């Protein structure tokens, strides 16, 4: 597993590298945005850890440019929490996850593993079913001309359903795909999210875009489809 770490603070960079190498990762370090961008273009990485506050090009710009040229390597951004740059902006620019400094190395490791587990999003193409449009890379969703405000998890659930539009998806499948096979919480959580989605899509409680198939699961169809 190769990781590109773009971080200008020497101590943080060397500390993270040491830790990751002990876990079996290969780590390359760049200390400014432009070099990071160039390196990412030359070498294929499994994950890019990108700090926001960088000399020259900042982390947001690097992330945006990578996405623009079709590079969908998972990016974990390190945010400084100065108030101006916040997590939502990180995700909206195209990052997959974020961590605020100072962070615990243990948590960083957990997040990296989570990112590696996820299927990679290769295309920037949004999902479209009828007049429902979901652009996961930009975290935006529209029903017709109205934009719908969804949380990250809601988007994951909706994305899962949209990718299987017209098919019945079992609740347990949604649970395993999005919350992981080792999820120990209340399985009812899927129903709650479906309910949220229905409410935000201004749906009737059933037989709208998302239909409940009793005993089996859910199915997503285009709006207005029988």
């Amino acid at each position, binding site marked *: 597993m190769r990781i590109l770490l773009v971080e200008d603070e020497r101590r943080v960079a060397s500390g993270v590298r040491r830790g990751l190498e002990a876990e079996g990762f290969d780590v390359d370090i760049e200390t400014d945005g432009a070099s990071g961008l160039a390196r990412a273009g030359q070498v294929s990485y499994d994950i890019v850890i990108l700090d926001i506050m960088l000399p020259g090009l900042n982390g947001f710009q690097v992330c945006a440019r990578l996405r623009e040229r079709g590079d969908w390597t998972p990016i974990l951004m390190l945010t400084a929490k100065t*108030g101006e740059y916040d997590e*939502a902006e990180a995700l909206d620019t195209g990052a997959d996850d974020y961590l605020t400094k100072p962070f615990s190395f243990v948590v960083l490791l957990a997040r990296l593993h989570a990112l590696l587990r996820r299927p990679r999003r290769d295309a920037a193409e949004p999902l479209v079913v009828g007049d429902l449009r979901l652009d996961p890379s930009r975290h935006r969703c529209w*029903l017709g001309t109205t*934009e719908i405000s969804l949380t990250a998890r809601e988007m994951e659930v909706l994305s899962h359903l949209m990718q299987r539009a017209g098919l019945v998806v079992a609740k347990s499948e949604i649970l395993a795909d999005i919350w992981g096979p080792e999820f120990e919480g209340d399985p009812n*959580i899927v129903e709650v999210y479906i309910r949220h989605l229905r409410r935000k899509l201004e749906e009737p409680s059933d037989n709208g875009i998302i239909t409940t198939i009793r005993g089996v699961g859910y199915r997503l169809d285009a709006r207005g489809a029988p």
Partner: protein
Amino acid sequence: MTSPRLAGWSLRARVTAAGLLGVLVLLGVCGLAVVAYFESTLLRQVDDGLVGDSEFVARVLPEVAQLPPGTVVHRDVLVQVVDPEGVVFGGSENAEGLPALASLEPGEDPQAMHFRDTELDGEPLRALIRPSEAFEGLQLVLARPVGQVDTAVAEIRRLVLAGVPLLSIALGVLLWLVTGRALRPVDDMRSTVEEIEASDLGRRVPTSGRDDEIDRLAATVNDMLGRLEASVERQRRLVADASHELRSPIAGVRVQLETEQTGDAEVVRESRAEALEDLRRLQQLIDDLLLLASGDAARHEPERWVDLDELVLSQAEQLRRTTSLHIDVAGVSGGQVYGHAAELERLVGNLASNAARHAESRVSFEVRERTDLVELTIADDGAGVPEADRSRIFERFTRLDDARDRDRGGAGLGLAIVADVVAGHGGEVAVEDAEPNGARFVVRIRKSKPSPPAPTTRR
């Protein structure tokens, strides 16, 4: 209502000027009206007098055109008997030799009474001409000098024209003095407040006890000063408490690192772990302090939909990796609120670390959506919180058992932040007993939808 010219004047000047001008105009108009009324009354009296006299004369002159000498009519009244051509047939003694003082105009009714203003040798006269009952075709003319009336009126008018401005000026001076007096407390207030520094916030502006508008203003200003003083005091206390809390972990880490002996790997590992713990505690404290210091004023982050279940699962994961406690999330279902994500993350984090700090062996999390709110429950199996302390623990820098808590990493701000964030989201937090033992914190937050369910802004 102030014209541009008046804009720069003081309140005192404006009140005085308005009063002076108002009185001037008012008194002036009234005065001149009174004078006019006076004049018309006097003239009417003259006319009435002439009419009365003419009745009298008509009775006394049945056949003779000449008034017997000594006949008393009003002093200065001239009587004449004239014909339509203006020939004088007779009259009173004092009118002897005078030409007709008045005569009928063409078209005038000879049977009616007519008044004339005329003059004799430069003196103004008021004349009445009426038919003589005794002599057919002849008219009686009675005339009276009215110079006195004119003089009287002129005198009064002069008095008014002189007196009104003087009165106005006098009033103006009075107004000036009175307003100055009334406004002095305001100026005193201003200069007192001007002098108040952060060092003597105990000062207050003087009140007169009269309970008028100025006094009420003074009372309000004093209330405000009181609040200011309390707020500054609170902040001072926070800084004092915090400085100690900030210095301790730094001291701890420093000593650890300075005295670290390389050699015994176990000892080194232990001291490193302790130093890390101190740093973590320090970081937590700094974050908490910054959050408290910014208060409810500066909420940089706009509100959006936040999945509390996500925050809880993330904290649970962290506890699993950093502690050996059993973490139970079986009760975590979906729970979404509209609020500030960073603050809610802090809320969950603080409750989680608090639980972890006190737990003996397990921490459990629950998230449930109810009709209008989301309920978050975090329980530990530690010593629990005695009922008497259940509201105290949410205050800043309080710890139930100082030494033990601090060693476990508590600095006394975590729950204060929890209370702060919960309040800011229109919710409530309470602590109860967990079964069979331990503390259970229950947070209830309104779901708080914005009015249309699908906002079109991104965040």
